[in-house]
């Protein structure tokens, strides 16, 4: 039923796009140049959406934040319908009132890129098993978290979280406490992944809009490093006071690794990120298809991983596609409903201009990334920052110019979107996935609000304030 709903949604978007003759002309024209630029140029001719069209976006984000807590039963059963329905309102409005199918197709293309990357990382890492039989010490835990922060930039915060959460729990099984998991979420599921577009979904969306792959590591490492160090220091202090352990228990010190072929899948996903007509000239542009060669490769990895992953490993990992299914449904709604919000924010920022400081961008991107999802929030504020300087987020050359001339704004938005995703369970996709794995193991996790007031507010906010004081004040 839900699959049919999603399929219908895609078909409607693509058919609207095909029916639009103006778009067909654009596509022919775009074949020899960069498609995005052409589409965006035409997009500029369309009038701005009505402000009321932001309502579906706001409603969806509020429901994502409150659904799992206040009306979980309804939400668990109906979130796909809610998401697709709200997205459909915007699709209908853009198709029949604004006659702007360019924005819809552009968004659909972006959605496929986003979900193909996340799904492939999810399925490939789900078939890898790491078993560690060592005695947990604060130093070993710091080492695992630091390793997680680094590899999050290679296999994504989703992949790193999936790969490391089980060995991390296993090592600490005799001294398991919620703070261990919370710090794992802080570092591996969020802040660690700030150095590459693969690291965290918001940065990948920025990459899709035209930001260079290596821009992030060049401009963020010197903020990433002290932030990670400070959080690890706080963790070490807390973890050193955890004296629980099983007396007399012996450890073999063995580290067991299974699922090597899935490492090859991860490598394929990583290489595929660069297979883009805008990055490599030999890559065929498959427009008007919303799925490019990169996405075809990544989705093939999903099928391969599903068919060839070892059953024993999947059972050990209690593999379940529900988390990625949830992301797929929610983000089809988010991507569709945020189209008017992105255009309006960009327009308003253009008008407000000089009044918006880099500090404002840091805090507003950050705080909203914490309570909403950080990926759409990132795009909204990136759009606003570009608008401030008269650039358009839909024009790749504008994004590239902005990246080089006003890098501090882009840096503040990127840092804030990734770092603040750790503020709540709903700030970033892997946060919920880690919580889900931990609860399946029978460990009670803090509630939504306890997570915030016991951990995020006293630990993360002071550290983020320090980042702001040093870099953006």
């Amino acid at each position: 039923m839900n699959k049919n709903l999603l399929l219908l949604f895609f078909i409607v978007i693509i058919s609207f796009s095909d029916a639009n003759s103006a778009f067909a002309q654009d596509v022919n024209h775009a074949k020899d140049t960069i498609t995005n630029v052409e589409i965006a140029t035409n997009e500029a001719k369309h009038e701005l959406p009505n402000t009321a069209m932001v309502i579906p976006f706001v409603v969806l984000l509020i429901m994502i934040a409150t659904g799992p807590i206040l009306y979980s039963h309804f939400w668990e059963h109906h979130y796909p319908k809610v998401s697709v329905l709200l997205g459909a309102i915007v699709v209908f409005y853009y198709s029949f009132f604004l006659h702007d199918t360019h924005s819809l197709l552009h968004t659909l293309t972006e959605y496929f890129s986003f979900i193909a990357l996340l799904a492939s990382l999810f399925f490939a890492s789900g078939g890898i098993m790491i078993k560690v039989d060592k005695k947990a010490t604060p130093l070993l835990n710091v080492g695992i978290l630091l390793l997680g922060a680094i590899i999050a930039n290679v296999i994504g915060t989703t992949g790193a979280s999936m790969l490391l959460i089980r060995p991390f729990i296993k090592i600490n099984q005799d001294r398991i406490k919620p703070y261990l998991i919370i710090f794992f979420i802080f570092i591996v599921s969020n802040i660690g992944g700030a150095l590459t577009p693969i690291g965290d979904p918001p940065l990948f969306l920025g990459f899709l809009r035209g930001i260079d792959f290596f821009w992030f590591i060049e401009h963020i490492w010197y903020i990433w490093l002290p932030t990670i160090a400070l959080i690890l220091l706080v963790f070490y202090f807390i973890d050193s006071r955890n004296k629980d352990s099983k007396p007399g228990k012996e450890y073999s010190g063995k580290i067991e690794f299974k699922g090597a072929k899935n490492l090859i899948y991860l490598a394929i996903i990583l290489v595929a990120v660069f297979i883009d007509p805008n990055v490599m000239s030999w890559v065929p542009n498959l427009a008007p298809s919303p799925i490019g060669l990169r996405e075809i490769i990544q989705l093939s990895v999903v099928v391969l991983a599903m068919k060839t992953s070892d059953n024993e490993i999947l059972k050990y990992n209690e593999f379940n596609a529900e988390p990625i299914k949830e992301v797929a449904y929610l983000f089809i709604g988010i991507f569709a409903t945020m189209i008017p919000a992105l255009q309006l924010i960009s327009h308003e920022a253009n008008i407000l201009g000089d009044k918006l400081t880099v500090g404002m961008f840091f805090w507003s991107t950050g705080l909203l990334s914490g309570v909403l999802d950080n990926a759409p929030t990132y795009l909204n504020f990136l759009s606003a920052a570009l608008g401030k300087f008269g650039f358009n987020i839909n024009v790749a050359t504008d994004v590239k110019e902005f990246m080089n001339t006003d890098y501090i704004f882009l840096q503040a938005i990127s840092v804030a979107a990734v770092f603040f995703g750790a503020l709540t369970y709903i700030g970033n996709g892997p946060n919920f996935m880690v919580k889900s794995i931990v609860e399946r193991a029978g460990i009670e996790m803090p509630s939504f609000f306890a997570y915030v007031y016991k951990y995020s507010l006293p630990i993360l906010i002071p550290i983020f304030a320090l980042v702001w004081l040093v870099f953006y004040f």
Partner: protein
Amino acid sequence: MKSITEVLNENITGLHYGCRVLLPFQAEILKIVIGTKIITNFSKNLEGACVRITDFYTEIYFCEYKNLAEELTKYEVVKLVVVQQGDDVFDFNKHIPIELVIESKHKLLIKPIPDDLLFFE
């Protein structure tokens, strides 16, 4: 009536029908983990799980599920901490962690939780 240990040693299976699970032993249930839900409330309310111990089996109703076979994936199991009825529930050594695997034709495999599966009492 078999004991829990006998059921585990002899690989005796239980049954499942919709949201109902039947275990071929008499047991006090201390904790259930199903999906992401950790259930420790076995009072008569309709949330979570409802347990009934008869002279011939122990049955559990998972009230929030329509059909366990449809809602749990083939890699998911239901995890429980049980104590043989009549044994000292306050003695941690008597607590037995088991997993229930939903099979076709209403068959329910009952196994001890393997060491490498993450489960905390």
